[in-house]
């Protein structure tokens, strides 16, 4: 393998204008596969979710899943696409062992949805991504490469194939070329995939788990010299399977191409593979020896002609889309663009919203999710949503704080207990005995002890230096291990010392 140099990013952007293109594959979350009744459960035993159709046994035939068609149209509508009045599936012919029929049922020149757009908010500006097409196809099986080095295809002795994934409905969303993003290109790419993911979630059409491969992204990048007018040769980077990788892949490819072009070289039109470990890409198949896929209309399936009235109904019943919802919540919660953006980046909006719905004041809900919980998530390397705590539980904690039964310190302990699996907030409070002590009798005993140990401070307060009461209250808090009601303790100390404010 040749070692490739990279030009520092800022310099690359100074000299070249990147043009992006993104192809995203989303596995739909249907119960059954695209063209047969096999289950789609992830992680099932090998070849336990296959039938004559998805194994391509001789004589088998496909029948299209109505739900998958509906989901694709809903995705198209959410992306402001036109919906085809009449379109067909097509066969894409090429031999590959993980593709049982040696053709993929896909769509060619008649996609179900086309000519849409998606608006992104980046640094307070709206960036419009034009959508070329949204079409429906089927996934392939999964090969495991044996022998050779570490499961890599190159150097493997043989492979073993599991067809459980073969035939799962796959929606492909293709953008038009995206010029003019300048140095924001990596961020735009990431924001686009993030927004798509949220739309899919909102529509409820896919669980969009990138780590399970239910959302996969191919990134096209080309560079054009600043001031130029002709777009450069593009490369297509496959295997980009996390949001962070989308950003890194774009950035890395810009740096790589810039170095080649600056050295007078030329970009080869090719497929490149992204490596999560190094963040770099390596060359795959050259696209110059063009594949001849011999697309033709799929004769085993009949054309799709969605009833316009049905499409209208689907459009009318789309849920509130994430960008609209964010604007509404920002207004309702009275947050700045910056705060909202931070919540968006942290994937916290839905959680905060659910917490508010469960009864918490927005500010409190936000405080806990973006503060303590975000810190905990970060420490354990998990997404916020994957923390073992529900918005309802967070809402209960805010309620306990508001009613004075907990203070912030105790609340943090309660959260810790819930995260540690000790039960609901109330159970944690009980088990750990975390309720605030506001009982005057109990407090009085502690105060007496503290005053006795801190005679100097007590004298200062008596002599009018009321500020010194802080140390005494601190003593009480310490003695109560944080559980004392600090305000009440202060009041009682002042009364005891005969001082009034």
């Amino acid at each position, binding site marked *: 393998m040749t070692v490739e140099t990279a030009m520092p990013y800022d310099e690359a952007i100074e000299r070249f204008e990147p043009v992006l293109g993104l192809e995203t594959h989303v596995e739909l979350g249907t119960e059954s596969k695209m063209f047969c009744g096999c289950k789609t459960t992830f992680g099932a035993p090998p070849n336990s979710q296959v039938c004559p159709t998805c194994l391509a046994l001789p004589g088998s035939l496909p029948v299209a899943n109505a739900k998958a068609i509906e989901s694709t149209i809903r995705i198209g509508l959410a992306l402001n696409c036109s919906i085809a009045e009449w379109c067909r599936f097509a066969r894409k012919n090429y031999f590959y062992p993980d593709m049982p029929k040696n053709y993929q049922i896909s769509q060619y020149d008649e996609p179900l949805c086309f000519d849409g757009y998606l608006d992104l908010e980046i640094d307070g500006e709206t960036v419009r991504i034009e959508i070329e097409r949204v079409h429906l196809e089927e996934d392939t099986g999964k090969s495991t490469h044996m022998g050779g080095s570490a499961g890599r295809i190159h150097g493997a*002795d043989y492979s073993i194939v599991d067809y459980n994934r073969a035939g799962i409905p796959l929606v492909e969303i293709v953008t038009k070329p995206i010029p003019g993003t300048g140095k924001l290109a990596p961020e735009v790419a990431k924001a686009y995939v993030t927004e798509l993911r949220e739309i899919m979630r909102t529509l409820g059409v896919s669980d969009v788990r990138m780590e399970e491969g239910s959302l996969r992204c191919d990134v096209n990048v080309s560079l054009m010299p600043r001031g130029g007018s002709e777009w450069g040769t593009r490369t297509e980077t496959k295997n980009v399977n996390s949001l962070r990788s989308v950003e890194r892949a774009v950035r890395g490819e810009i740096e790589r191409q810039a170095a080649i072009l600056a050295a007078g070289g030329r970009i080869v039109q090719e497929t490149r593979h992204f490596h999560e470990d190094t963040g770099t890409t390596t060359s795959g198949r050259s696209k110059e020896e063009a594949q001849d896929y011999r697309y033709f209309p799929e004769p085993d399936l009949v054309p799709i002609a969605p009833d316009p009235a049905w499409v209208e109904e689907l459009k009318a019943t789309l849920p509130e889309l994430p960008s609209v919802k964010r604007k509404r919540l920002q207004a309702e919660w009275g947050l700045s663009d910056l705060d909202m953006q931070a919540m968006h980046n942290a994937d916290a909006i839905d959680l905060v919203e659910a917490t508010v719905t469960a009864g918490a004041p927005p500010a409190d809900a936000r405080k806990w999710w973006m503060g303590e919980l975000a810190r905990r998530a970060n420490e354990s390397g998990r997404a916020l949503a994957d923390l073992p705590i529900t918005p309802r539980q967070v809402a209960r904690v805010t309620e306990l704080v508001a009613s004075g039964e907990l203070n912030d310190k105790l609340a943090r302990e309660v959260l810790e207990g819930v995260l540690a699996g000790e039960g609901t907030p109330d159970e944690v409070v009980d088990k750990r005995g975390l309720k605030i002590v506001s009982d005057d009798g109990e407090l009085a005993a502690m105060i007496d002890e503290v005053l006795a140990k801190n005679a100097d401070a007590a004298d200062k307060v008596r002599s009018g230096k009321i500020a010194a009461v802080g140390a005494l209250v601190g003593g009480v808090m310490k003695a109560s291990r944080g559980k004392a009601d600090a305000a009440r303790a202060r009041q009682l100390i002042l009364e005891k010392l005969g001082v009034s404010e």
Partner: protein
Amino acid sequence: MSAITRDEVAHLARLSRLALTDEELDHYATQLGDIIESVAKVAEVAAEDVPPSSHALPLTNVFRPDEVRQSLTPEQALSGAPAVEDDRFRVPRILGEEE
């Protein structure tokens, strides 16, 4: 001059995954050439404005509900396989790209 060259036949054989001998390539170049010449007649019939028909009948919108049906057992699925390992189909090493 045949309608199709030997090189073209070799290309078709590659696309079709058929390992043909040189003798077969020559033989098919002649035969396919004859057939292609003969079927080229189709160009004379249909005018520009005739829409193509991909299907025998004009059916549309045939779908199945999103319902799970019984799959084969792994034993049934693998019953015809030339080679099996670990409940998976064992196949020779795969050239080409990583997925």
